[in-house]
């Protein structure tokens, strides 16, 4: 087990190294780094100062080492607009995004799984066709458009839901959360549902496909032949097998959810890191942009790592690697 984790950790580090190279060279070779790090009102002396500050007179590999050195210390430069370290801004805004993404994940799982089970149990029933049609729509309709329609229907027309902001928050161990106030929940519902739809569609498809496969497996027939009840078979014998791919995909998609949060946060003015990114782009706050990109990449790689470990806990065949007969 530890062997597996160590191996997987080294892999993650390698991917991270590759990604820093990509972002660094993306910023420095494809884009003009001076342009990226300078504010829009910068004149020539100011530009020269930035070139010196950034160490752009150094050879490129040395620049990269400096960049990595700063990165390891968590230093990604100061935001132009706020004048504080970009990293601290991200950390300050992160709980809102994580809260939103987490709620979306929970909704996707708790709505998608039962729907997928229903669709998988009776694949030719009308209910199944409706569910699959819904999944197909949720999968293909752009997220921002769904958010828009929700605002039109529930906020503008019906006036049930607030269209923007986070509502009241509760301070929990220094982290502000909307989940625990009525007003906060009220604000959270629409963005969370909007963000959950793609994942929900995916959960439905995976569950249904898994059901179709596992239900006909010999070990399920054997469990039935031993008189084990249908509900027990479904909730343990089938579900344990289905959950493995679902957990994997959900985990891998969680990074995508954080990325998609950019869209949802912009629509609902949810004050998370995604909204911050769009605002930063609008005012060309470049250190903040770079910090966000690197931060998301790092988080994404770590998420993949965690998921792989979780996966190995769920599926004994992976954990024991070579032992499979």
């Amino acid at each position, binding site marked *: 087990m530890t062997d597996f984790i160590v191996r997987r950790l080294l892999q993650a580090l390698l*991917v991270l190294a*590759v990604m820093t190279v990509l*972002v660094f060279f*993306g*910023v420095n070779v*494809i*884009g003009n780094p001076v342009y990226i790090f300078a504010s829009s009102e910068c004149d020539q002396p100011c530009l020269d100062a930035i070139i010196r500050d950034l160490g752009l007179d150094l050879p490129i590999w040395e620049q990269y080492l400096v960049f990595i050195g700063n990165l390891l210390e968590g230093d990604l430069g100061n935001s132009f607009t706020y004048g504080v370290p970009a990293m601290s801004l991200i950390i300050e805004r992160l709980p809102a995004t994580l809260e939103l993404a987490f709620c979306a994940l929970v909704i996707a799982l708790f709505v998608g799984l039962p729907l997928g089970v229903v669709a998988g149990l009776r694949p030719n029933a009308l209910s199944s066709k409706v569910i699959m049609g819904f999944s*197909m*729509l949720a*999968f*293909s*309709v*752009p*997220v*921002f*458009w769904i958010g*828009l*329609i929700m*605002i*039109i229907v529930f906020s*503008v027309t019906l006036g049930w839901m607030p*269209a923007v902001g986070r509502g009241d928050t509760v301070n929990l161990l220094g982290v502000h959360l909307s989940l625990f106030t009525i007003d906060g929940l009220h604000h959270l519902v629409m963005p969370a549902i909007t963000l959950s739809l793609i994942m929900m569609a995916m959960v439905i498809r995976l569950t249904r496909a898994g059901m179709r496969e596992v239900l006909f497996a010999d070990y399920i027939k054997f469990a039935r032949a031993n008189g084990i009840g249908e509900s027990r078979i479904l909730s343990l014998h089938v579900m344990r097998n289905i959950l493995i791919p679902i957990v994997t995909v959900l985990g*891998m*998609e969680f*990074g*995508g959810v954080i*990325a*998609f949060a*950019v*869209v949802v946060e*912009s*629509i609902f003015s949810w004050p998370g890191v995604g909204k911050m*990114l*769009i605002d930063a*782009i*609008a005012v060309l706050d470049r250190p903040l*942009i770079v910090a966000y*990109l690197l931060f*998301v*990449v790092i988080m*994404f790689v770590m998420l*993949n790592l965690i998921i792989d470990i979780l996966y190995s806990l769920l599926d004994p065949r992976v954990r024991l690697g070579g032992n499979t007969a």
Partner: protein
Amino acid sequence: MNGAALTSPTPGIWRVFLRSPTAVAALIVFSGFCAIAVLAPWITWQNPYDLAQVDIMDSLLPPGSESWTGAPYYLGTDGQGRDMLSAMIYGIRISLLVGVVSGLIALLIGTIVGLVAAYRGGWVDTVLMRIVDLQLSFPTILVALILVVILGRGVDKIIIALVVVQWAYFARTVRGVALVESAREYVDAARGLKIGHLRILFLHILPNCLPTMLVVATMQMAAAISLEATLSFLGLGLPPTRPSLGLLIANGFDYLQSGRYWISVLPGLVLLSIIVSANVLGDRLRDTLNPHLS
């Protein structure tokens, strides 16, 4: 539809394809939008990009209004006084253009990479597929976001970003099919006859990959159009001077709270129809061409 079925070289597949009424409807809708995109300059009375033809005094008129010259605004006007119908038709043109062009370039790159990986095998295959895996492990929206932030706005830039996002899917799919094909006897025989590598690749292996590629291309195009719209909606995609459907929706977003729904909702519905019809087409193509494709 019947004409197409008759002239098609493989009428069997066509007939199976046309058996689904949903797919036929999707085909009609999608071809309709393609025709609109091609004919845009001839079927609109206003060029929404030409500021001389747009009257700011006519801004935010509801559907069914008229300009002071008597020209009809069937679907109303937007914040700049543009005729929504004309703007949407040009928006369809831009959205489809970006989707199709990026899809074709990605298809080309992905096909070459996939074919080379499958045909050469060995370390070439390993290296290429590692890159593909690495890229596919990142969500497309994230990769696209990074790229447009680095590259900036513009039709060419968004096409580059969409190509980068898509090529890996094509490469992996083509490699998979090509691997199966190059294991077949006829490829071995061709090799034995000392037929050139390129000839084997393009005359023997490639044609057998085409059905699968068509399916992936259709789905990818839908995804690309959706992604472009999302980026444009965020103000990161196409420049405001050439509004795609996504940008039109974003422009209308500001007027939503005041009840001027048409500016956002109408282009949204069009976008929705394009994406859904393309997805239905892809689904149906997959079912008819290759039932084994997951």
